[in-house]
């Protein structure tokens, strides 16, 4: 018979059990801080009654890419506005299939914090770590350098936080350094080579001698490799490849040896400030007026951006390159985004702004599709996700390497601009099929879903 009147007592065994249970309960938050626990307990998991979630936008606010970073930040703010149901909605009206409702993400309003990468890997990592640990962000996005992207992506993998890369063009980001928690919407050097090759063949033939000036870091190396592979497949000869330090400023000492090298084509694997300087100085040294091997000397800038085109001025006119996206595209998604961004800021968005805006929406949509913020489920919702209405036609996030595949734009510095922003003329929208490649060629390992 059960004794209901029994007074609760604490014997030795009970005390030990209670102590162990209390100890485990008390220590569990420390375990959770360093790894995911069972079920859906994960780093920075929003409380059920939380009204907001926080995203981290880590962009270069100082340093050589600060203007690019400022444009990225504008795009992020616009994306947050649209996700929260404010403004005209931009690409949320054209993006499909979309689970976004315009009421935040999973019913929680979106807030954000910003950080300054300074275009330095160590500063970017420190900033991202602060956002994850102090600000409790669920996702980090941004960056205008592959070195930074790879460093932050590695950190996010270690800490189990989603990383939606901004502008990064190195093959390594979704190649040998790819990570399960990192996704790249931007195209890469390999895709640039595949897109540019046929246009180069058509415009410059198959008998060229190329000289490369290359930024001495991951992005420069992979771009040089990809473009060299492409041009040599066309029958071009590579006369010389020269690595230049990032931020060299005066490139004249690298340009003068080109004059008597026998090369008739200069390929500038430079970006940002370096590209503006090296191109300006190449033009000043009369390279574009030269005739070598019976041909007009040509300069190629494989990776273009409109902000760079503004810096290089008329020196860029007529020069071929590629870009991830351009504000002059006429598809409905691009038009909606340009209208929304232009109304807000009085300028059309740059390709950096576009990719950051799209990445924010894609992350939010993946959370809605997964029905949770739990990263492994969000990752699964993004892997292999096919969508349209975000510019550049039908797009897919390839599951094997988290690289987005879409049409790539071959552009030329506009010789007859019709407006102050009309700096790049689209020569060809190269179909996605032409720039696809086997994910295995770059190696690398995505790593686990649960960390």
């Amino acid at each position: 018979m059960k004794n209901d009147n029994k007074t609760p007592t604490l014997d030795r065994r009970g005390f030990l059990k209670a102590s162990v249970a209390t100890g485990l309960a008390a220590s569990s938050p420390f375990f959770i801080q360093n790894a995911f626990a069972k079920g859906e307990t994960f780093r920075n998991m929003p409380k059920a009654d939380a009204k907001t979630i926080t995203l981290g936008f880590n962009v270069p606010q100082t340093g050589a890419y600060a203007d690019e970073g400022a444009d990225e930040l504008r795009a992020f703010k616009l994306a947050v506005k649209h996700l929260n149901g404010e403004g005209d909605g931009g690409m949320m009206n054209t993006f499909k299939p979309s689970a976004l409702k315009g009421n935040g993400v999973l019913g929680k309003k979106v807030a954000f914090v910003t950080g300054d990468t300074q275009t330095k890997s160590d500063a970017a990592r420190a900033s991202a770590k602060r956002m994850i640990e102090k600000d409790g962000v669920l996702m980090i996005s941004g960056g205008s350098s592959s070195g930074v992207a790879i460093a932050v992506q590695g950190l996010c993998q270690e800490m189990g936080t989603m990383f939606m890369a901004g502008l990064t063009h190195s093959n390594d980001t979704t190649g040998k350094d790819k990570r399960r928690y990192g996704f790249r919407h931007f195209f890469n050097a390999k895709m640039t080579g595949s897109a540019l090759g046929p246009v180069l063949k058509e415009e410059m033939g198959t008998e060229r001698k190329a000289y490369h000036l290359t930024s001495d870091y991951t992005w420069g190396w992979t771009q040089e490799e990809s473009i060299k592979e492409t041009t040599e497949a066309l029958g071009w000869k590579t006369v010389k490849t020269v690595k230049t330090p990032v931020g060299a400023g005066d490139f004249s000492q690298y340009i003068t040896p080109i004059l008597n090298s026998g090369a008739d084509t200069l390929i500038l694997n430079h970006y940002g400030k370096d590209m503006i300087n090296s191109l300006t100085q190449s033009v000043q040294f009369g390279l574009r007026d030269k005739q070598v091997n019976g041909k007009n000397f040509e300069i190629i800038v494989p990776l273009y951006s409109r902000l760079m085109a503004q810096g290089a001025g008329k020196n860029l006119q007529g020069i071929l390159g590629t870009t991830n996206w351009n504000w002059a595209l006429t598809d409905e998604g691009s038009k909606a985004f340009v209208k929304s961004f232009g109304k807000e800021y009085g300028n059309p968005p740059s390709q950096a702004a576009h990719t950051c805006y799209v990445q924010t929406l894609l992350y939010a949509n993946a959370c809605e599709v997964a029905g949770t913020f739990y990263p492994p489920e969000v990752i699964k919702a993004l892997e292999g996700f096919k969508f349209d209405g975000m510019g550049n036609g039908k797009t897919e996030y390839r599951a094997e390497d988290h690289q987005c595949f879409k049409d790539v734009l071959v552009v030329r510095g506009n010789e007859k601009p019709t407006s102050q922003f009309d700096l790049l003329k689209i020569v060809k929208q190269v179909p996605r099929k032409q720039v696809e490649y086997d994910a295995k060629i770059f190696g690398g390992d995505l790593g686990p879903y649960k960390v």
Partner: protein
Amino acid sequence: MDAILIQILNGLDKGGAYALIALGLTLTFGTLGIVNFAHGALFMLGAFCAVLFNKILTFSVKVKDESITFFDAYKEQPYLEIWLGDTGTAIIDYAVPLSILFAIPVMLLVGVIMERGLIKHFYKREHADQILVTFGLAIVIQEIIRHFFGANPIPTPPPEIVSGSAPLGAMLGLNENLVYPWWRLIYLAFSLLIIGAVFAFLKFTTFGMVVRAGMADRETVELLGINVQKRFTVVFGIATVVAGLAGVMYAPILPPDYHMGMDFLVLSFVVVVVGGMGSLGGAVLAGFMLGLLQSFASMNEVKTILPGIDQIIIYLVAVIILLVRPRGLMGREGVFED
């Protein structure tokens, strides 16, 4: 032969910039004993004088850009072009050389304010304090420029007539393919002119004589009742103007950005040390010498034998010279040797 001639010219025009900046640094150090880490920022300020003057000349009215249909965009039309037509366009085209006239008073004013407001308080402090305060000042100047002009380089083209290359080969009866940018040749000539003017000023004027005497033996000159300090303040202003002019004329070669001064600062200090602390002639000699060495080390033939030599040649030569001649090429005994 062509390649050698091109490398010599390239070395000389680089050397011209190094020599101009190092000359200002040496003037400051030789007279006031100040190690001025803000000197690179003054070079950058000079370049931004060209940018600002260009902006003043192209001060515009905003006109709605009808070619943009997605949103309201505005383009700018300079008042000078509206008021003066083709003459206005021509004036804008010559913005960089004209900005020399703008930069001289501006840089002189900056120099005097800097010296009276900050530097004079550090004359008797240790060199480490001087370095810290001038380095801090350089960062403040940089950030002010970044705030107003952004971080991206700003294209500042030379006048159209000298924007291309000079047909040196045709002019000298050599290979017709031998060309060199007009503006770099102008920069070389300009740097030689400024260096010559500074030396002439110090050599042939009474003011210069007093300054040289003060540099050699300040105590004796002061005992003669001459206010050396006042003259040295003027020299600081002159050094600032020299750095500023070097920057103005460099703007078409390297589109100015807020960080360009720092890129030159380290090199210029190496030039000063190699030339000999406080030696004006040494600074000029070392500037041209290191420019030439850097240029030749960048030749593919050299780099094939010694990969990466172009990156270290200046520092390597500096180490060798300081080992052989610890006071630099033309350094004097007793300078920086307390």
